[in-house]
């Protein structure tokens, strides 16, 4: 039962990722990316992290992609007009070959590896909070809140009309 869900979500993620990088209209790419993010959330839940799964939908699919869609719709972005030139095609072929090589090598290693038993796992939110607020990660946690504040101020300043 879990296996069917995992492989279906993985297939959906790959197909929509292909749509993201292949589609000419960027709004279709954005919606395909939302589908990818939601299927990744399903995979996170199957890998035993419900908190990260829900956070993925709330933050990525629910906030960041809304931001992308707003910018796309407000700037009225059209589809890419021309076919890529010869330089881009060569670069593309080289990039595809390299990526395929990487995936094939990793795949070969992973298929041969022995799966050990997965240890017992307590991925509850309480446990996550205990780690996040422990001395190991507390400073990083507070620093990210300052980072978000800086990003907020920066984004507003950059997007203002009368800079």
């Amino acid at each position, binding site marked *: 039962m*879990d296996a069917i869900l*995992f492989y279906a979500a*993985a297939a959906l*993620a*790959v197909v929509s*990722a292909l749509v*993201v*990088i292949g589609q000419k209209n960027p709004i279709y*790419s954005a919606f395909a*990316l939302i589908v*990818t993010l939601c299927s990744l959330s399903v*995979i*996170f839940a199957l*890998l*035993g*992290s419900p908190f*990260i799964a829900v956070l*993925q939908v709330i*933050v*990525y699919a629910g906030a*960041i992609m809304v*931001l*992308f869609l707003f*910018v796309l719709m407000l*700037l009225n*972005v059209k589809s*890419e007009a021309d076919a*890529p030139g010869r330089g881009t095609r060569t*670069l*593309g072929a080289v*990039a595809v070959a390299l*990526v*395929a090589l*990487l*995936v094939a090598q*990793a*795949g070969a290693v*992973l298929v041969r*590896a022995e*799966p*050990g*038993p*997965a*240890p*017992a*796992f307590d*991925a509850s939110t309480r446990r*996550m909070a205990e*780690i*996040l607020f422990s001395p190991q990660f507390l400073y*990083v946690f507070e620093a*990210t809140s300052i980072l978000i504040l*800086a990003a907020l101020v920066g*984004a*507003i*300043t*950059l*997007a203002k*009309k009368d*800079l």
Partner: protein
Amino acid sequence: MDHPSFVQHAVLLSLVLFGLGTLGVFLRRNVITVLMSIELMLNGANLAFVAFSRAAGTLDGQVLVFFVMVVAAAEAAVGLAIVIALHRHKDTLDVDAFNVMRG
């Protein structure tokens, strides 16, 4: 969820997603699509973190995913603000059009 090969296949999926994201960054000419491909790469990395966190039985990978998500959100916000400023300046979103600093 206790199926051990989930972890391996998840790592493979994360590699595939990262590779597709890289292809998107190289091959697409619209700035926003390039940003979306970067988000795809970040998600591939998140998946690898979660998969290894599952295999090791600790939660450190998931905590790192939490921080990666926060940083990705900040980066998307600032990146899109820059895109808006660029669009206002040149009225196009083609990557090849912003070549003032070449050479």
